[in-house]
């Protein structure tokens, strides 16, 4: 019963939570740059505007692919919030991303195609750590099931601090933050217009944004997984940890410039090896 309620709450509230976090992000970013920034509910205004615009789509398949992206992300998040298999959740997350890549490359725009190929590079960069992460949770807690992981006597972060560091590194890619916002960016004026989303107008862009909000919630849910244990006080601790980590991502976004794809790939794999790999070896030895 709890699982059903949790999934329904996730499906209903995740877009709102994501949009609120985005509003928070935009204000904090503006303040860091010495500006006032937009209203807190700006993401909601943007969404309702996008839905009221004319639907310009180069082909019909783009809408279908973007909807698939949304559905797969929602399903991946539901698996996490239902307490199901973390491995399956992470697999679904990559499947969802493949739909986004296909949606972007379904039209003839060279900018969107370039964004799609960069998105695939980004997937190459973060995928090793996400897979290692699932195995790390298994080694630390003896189960792939989220429901078992959050009912351990101690938070799993004590066993896998390296994984948390590595995960924070790749979350910058997933949240499309500088220095890893290669495929598309929240900021204007870049070398390839809007990358992935160049040919997405009005309602299609709105669906893409909602999918991103599901993704933000999902990523923060995985961060919370590091901190949750069987004690009640781990829940407020996890929420604080998530918000702190989100703040760190915003800070990183504002103090760094975009890197080249080679640096992205190299740095992500080195960080994966140093944080995830080392933590993995230690867990194997002590278990």
């Amino acid at each position: 019963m709890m699982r059903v309620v949790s999934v329904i709450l996730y499906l209903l509230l995740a877009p709102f939570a994501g949009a609120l976090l985005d509003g928070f992000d935009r204000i904090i970013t503006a303040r860091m740059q010495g500006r006032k920034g937009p209203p807190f509910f700006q993401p909601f205004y943007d969404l309702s505007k996008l839905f009221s615009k004319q639907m310009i789509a180069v082909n019909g398949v783009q809408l279908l692919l973007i909807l698939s992206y949304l559905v797969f992300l929602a399903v991946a998040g539901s698996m996490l919030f239902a307490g199901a298999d973390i491995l399956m959740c992470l697999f679904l997350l990559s499947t969802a991303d493949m739909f986004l890549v296909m949606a972007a490359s379904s039209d003839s725009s060279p900018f969107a195609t370039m964004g799609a190929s960069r998105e695939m590079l980004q997937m190459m960069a973060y995928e090793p750590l996400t897979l290692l992460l699932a195995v790390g949770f298994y080694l630390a807690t003896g189960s792939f099931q989220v429901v078992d992981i959050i009912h351990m006597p101690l938070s799993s972060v004590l066993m896998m601090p390296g994984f948390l560091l590595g995960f924070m590194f790749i979350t910058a890619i997933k949240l499309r933050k500088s220095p890893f916002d290669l495929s598309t960016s929240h900021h204007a004026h870049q070398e390839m217009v809007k990358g992935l989303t160049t040919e997405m107008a009005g309602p299609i862009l709105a669906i893409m944004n909602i999918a991103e909000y599901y993704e933000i919630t999902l990523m923060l849910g995985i961060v919370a997984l590091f901190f949750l244990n069987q004690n009640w006080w781990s829940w407020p601790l996890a929420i604080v940890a998530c918000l702190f980590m989100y703040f760190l991502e915003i800070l990183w976004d504002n103090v760094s410039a975009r890197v080249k794809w080679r640096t992205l790939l190299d740095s992500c794999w080195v960080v994966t090896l140093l944080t995830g790999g080392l933590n993995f070896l230690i867990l194997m030895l002590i278990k």
Partner: protein
Amino acid sequence: MGKLAKSPWMLHYDGSSCNGCDIEVLACTTPVYDVERFGIINTGDPFQADILLITGGINSQSESVVKQIYSQMPNPKVVVAVGICACTGGIFKECYNIKGGVDTVIPVDIYVPGCAARPQAIIDGVVKAVELLQKKREAFASQRKKSGT
């Protein structure tokens, strides 16, 4: 305030300007003027823009580009001509290569004169554009309801 009024995204294109007005347009996004407090985003993508800001007069080379950008913007949309060159052609009006203001190529809704147009005037023009955008949105919505799509 309606939906569009709170989230007007603008696209900035330089027809053949001397860059004076362009610098003033960019000044609007800096901490001093900060147009993002109105929800305005300076996007680079015509597919996602509501307001087209054009600086400089139109010459035979930029004509096709302006037409294409305009056609790529989804309805409802508003065009703002920033600076006297974009309004009428300005001091370049008599040049052999200049066609004149932006309205010789695409319909212009708001004219912001000045050489260069000051950031305050540009923001004023954009706010006027937002009001017009809202009217166009209502017309667009009723038209869409009538046609049933």
